[in-house]
């Protein structure tokens, strides 16, 4: 059974590129366009990894991260935060709220795919 990834992002073009990359890498990909959608997707079926954009409508990335971490059932969900805000404070805030990694836009598709692969392969 392929590892599942939840892409949480509101920019359609970025969603498209991430979806393309992750599918190509052989993962099961679901999409959420805002914070609420993301949380219901997690509740429906916890993914192995979340690519979580910070600036999303309704409930932002930090909020989603915190909510996921608050539930012990989801403690193994790996969270990579994506953000266009490159400041150190933003990164520290994400890590402090329980994100496992933090990637700044614009990211290298190759590096990101490699990173995701490594993590998910290590899980099995």
């Amino acid at each position, binding site marked *: 059974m392929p590892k599942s990834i939840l892409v949480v992002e*509101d*920019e*359609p*073009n*970025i969603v*498209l*590129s*991430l979806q*393309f*990359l992750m599918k*190509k890498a052989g993962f099961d990909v679901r999409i959420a*366009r*805002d914070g609420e959608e993301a949380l219901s997707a997690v509740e429906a079926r916890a993914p192995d990894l979340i690519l979580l954009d910070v*600036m*999303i*409508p*309704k409930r932002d990335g930090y909020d989603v991260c915190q909510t996921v971490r608050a539930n012990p059932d989801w403690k193994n969900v790996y969270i990579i935060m994506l953000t*266009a*805000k*490159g*400041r150190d404070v933003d990164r520290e805030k994400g890590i402090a709220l329980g994100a496992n990694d933090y990637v*700044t*836009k*614009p*990211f*290298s*598709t*190759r590096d990101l795919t490699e990173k995701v692969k490594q993590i998910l392969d290590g899980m099995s």
Partner: protein
Amino acid sequence: MSGTVAHLPSWIIIAVALCYVSLLFAIAYYGDKRARAGRSLVANPTIYALSIAVYCTAWTFYGSVGRAVESGFGFLPIYLGPTLMFALGWLVLRKIIRISKLHRITSIADFISSRYGKSHLLGGLVTIIAVVGIMPYISLQLKAVATSFDYLVKYPDLTPPAVAAPAVVGDTALWVTGLMALFSILFGTRHIDATEHHQGMVAAIAFESVVKLVAFLAVGLFVTFGMFDGFGDLFGQALARPDISSLMTMESAGRDWMPLVLLAFLAVIGLPRQFQVTVVENTDEQHLNKAIWLFPLYLLLINLFVLPIALAGMLVLPTGAAGGPAVSPDTFVLALPMAAHQEEIAVLAFLGGLSAATGMVIVETIALSTMICNDLVMPILFKCAWLHLGERRDLSKLLLNIRRGAIVIILGIGYFYFRLIGESYALASIGLVAFAAAAQFAPAVLAGIYWKHATRRAALAGISLGFVIWTYTLLLPSFALSGWLPHSFVDHGPFGWELLMPYALFGLSGFDPVPHSLFWSLFANVGALVMVSLFDRQATIERIQATLFVEVFRQQRPNVAAGYLQETVQVGALRTLAERFLGRERTDEVFTEYAQQRRMLLDANMRADGDLVQFVERRLAGVIGAASARVMVASTFKGQGFGAEEIMQILDETSQVLEYSRQLEQKSHELERATAELKAVNARLTDLDRMKDDFLSTVTHELRTPLTSIRSFSEILHDSPDLDIGERQHFLTIIIRESERLTRLINQVLDLTKIETGRMKWQMTDVDLREVIDHAVTALHQLFDERRIALEVQLPELVPAIRGDRDQLIQLTINLLSNAQKFCPPDVGRVEVGLRIADHEVTVSVADNGPGIPLNEQEAIFEKFHQVRSGQTGNPMGSGLGLAICRGIVEHLGGRIWVRSRPGHGATFFFTVPFAKA
């Protein structure tokens, strides 16, 4: 008219006069007694105003008529001057009174000395001038009483007393002089505790003012209605005589009118006796309110019958023109009732003249003796170490004796002056000479209370010069006219130098002696006062006194002594000092009063605070004058070795330190203010910095988003050679779109920054908005067609030109249209463009039928990076800069931009642009 011819024996006249004087004493005694009981008789505005009428002397009583015979209305300026001064009373007199009360001023000399740094020299100078200048005026009173007595004794004979019998005249005058001296001593220096107030005297003077007014009115009424049939008859007869009728025109009063008004205006504050009754004896500043109108009214009443009496005298009495012996116009007041054989009225007239003369002499000698004692003798005595005055325990007796001696000497000199000069001079002229001397004090007084920079040396120079010129142009000529000096002095100048002729100094001829003298003396006086002040520097004590005087209404309690004295003097020492001048009993009262006022107990070993020192100094000033009081108080500090000079020096240094610390304080205030301003600026800068930081962070965020897509798809295309053509095309389109978005964003950021920082280059022209809208619509037509959104444009035929940048206006319209299009649903979307013309501006509207904008966002959308997200997807629809740029453009053109919207019912954007000015 009484037909019987009776005699008026001299004993009757003497008895009446003595009775009158006894009555005065009774009033004075009663007044003093009431004052001591605390129920002051003179604390009454009417009595105050009447006492000021001591201004009307025998010179008024007899001399006004004399002057009227010479020059018609020429007698009036002497009364208009004071009327003018009292009209200004609220301005000038009130200030002088307030100052004098605060500083316990005892005389005009004390006032001037105190103002100019408590200068002994100035006080002494003023005293000497006052004595010399007023002396003729006093002798004038003696002469008036003696003459009127001798005249009355000769009744019913109307001819003037024989000049050839000086022994008789002299005897009478000598008696009068002696009695006057006695009165003055008894009135003014009876008390052991000499203070600046003489309430009994004031009561008596007020009574005398009533008597002289009643007497003069009685004579006037009798003459007008008894001897003639009223004013009509009297003036009618006078007009019939050409030599008399000329008196009733202003021409006879001559051009001396204005100078004489000025002279009397100045003299009424400079004359020592006027200063005494108006200022020193004032018990309540409020009394001035009544005096301001009552005193001028008194002057009016007492002058009412001057002209009628003068005219009647000329009509009825032998003038010498017909060959008979002439009656002097100066005695008309007495001669008219005598000619009509009205003994009672004649005696009443004599009493009126007597009261006018005694009133003047008593007040004047008391004022002068106070000045001589406080400002001349005491300072000298204190300087004479061999007198050991500093060690005498009780000096109050000595003070009174000095004053008594001064009274005797003043009247003595007055008598001799009368014997030497009196016969050659008319009453009227002598009075004016004294006025001219007293007027010399006025510049220093007036400058002293209004001009802080008037200095001691300037006052000395002004008064001295004025006095020298007065002496040269009035006093010396009077000696010459009496034969003391060669007559050629007056006619040809000293040693024949005509330029220095005393009545035509430096060639100024054509004036009467008094206006001539007044012109030169005041010119020199005021000139020196102003010029020296401008180039002089005040000592600190002068500066302090100047401020206290000029700003008297601003301060409650001047506190100069406080601060430097308090550590060095004990209450006991002050008490000992006070006892020496005030006597033990009075000192006890003073200290008790002080302690009660402040609810404190005074112990002899306590340190005296600045207030007490000042309190005692003021009390002493009331007795010995401000300058001497200061020296005496200063001498109590730190024993014998601590001299006045050192005290002055300390005061000087202290006030310099005070001034310095005041400046420091001011500087530190300024510094605080500057710091506060800096802080505010800094806060503003910090805010701006934070905003800039936020802006940068937001801009970076906005840039990274399209960049991410571009990079991702580029890498995907690069790494996936096996992509099918459709996908490849799709990804490339995305890359192009995102690149365009990036470019647009960068341009908008630059535009907005330019607008906000004012670096945008605006091409301002007259713009037709129809053309602008057409242009924008054409540019976006394809976009609307693609999404099948209806675009309706309805514009009026004729739109007034507006002033603006055409390209920016097109950009603005495109922004609004593309926004509208963006939010409209495809197929059913509809955008309407409208244009309305108002009074002075054009309003453009762009309406869509999109989702609308919530009320709470309708303001915020015009802010930078505020993005409206699409209702369905929650995606941001633009860069968040478009509307901010629109607002920047509209506001630069002087218009407004806003949106009206109901969520669910579309939104309408409006912007206005004012008309171009014709």
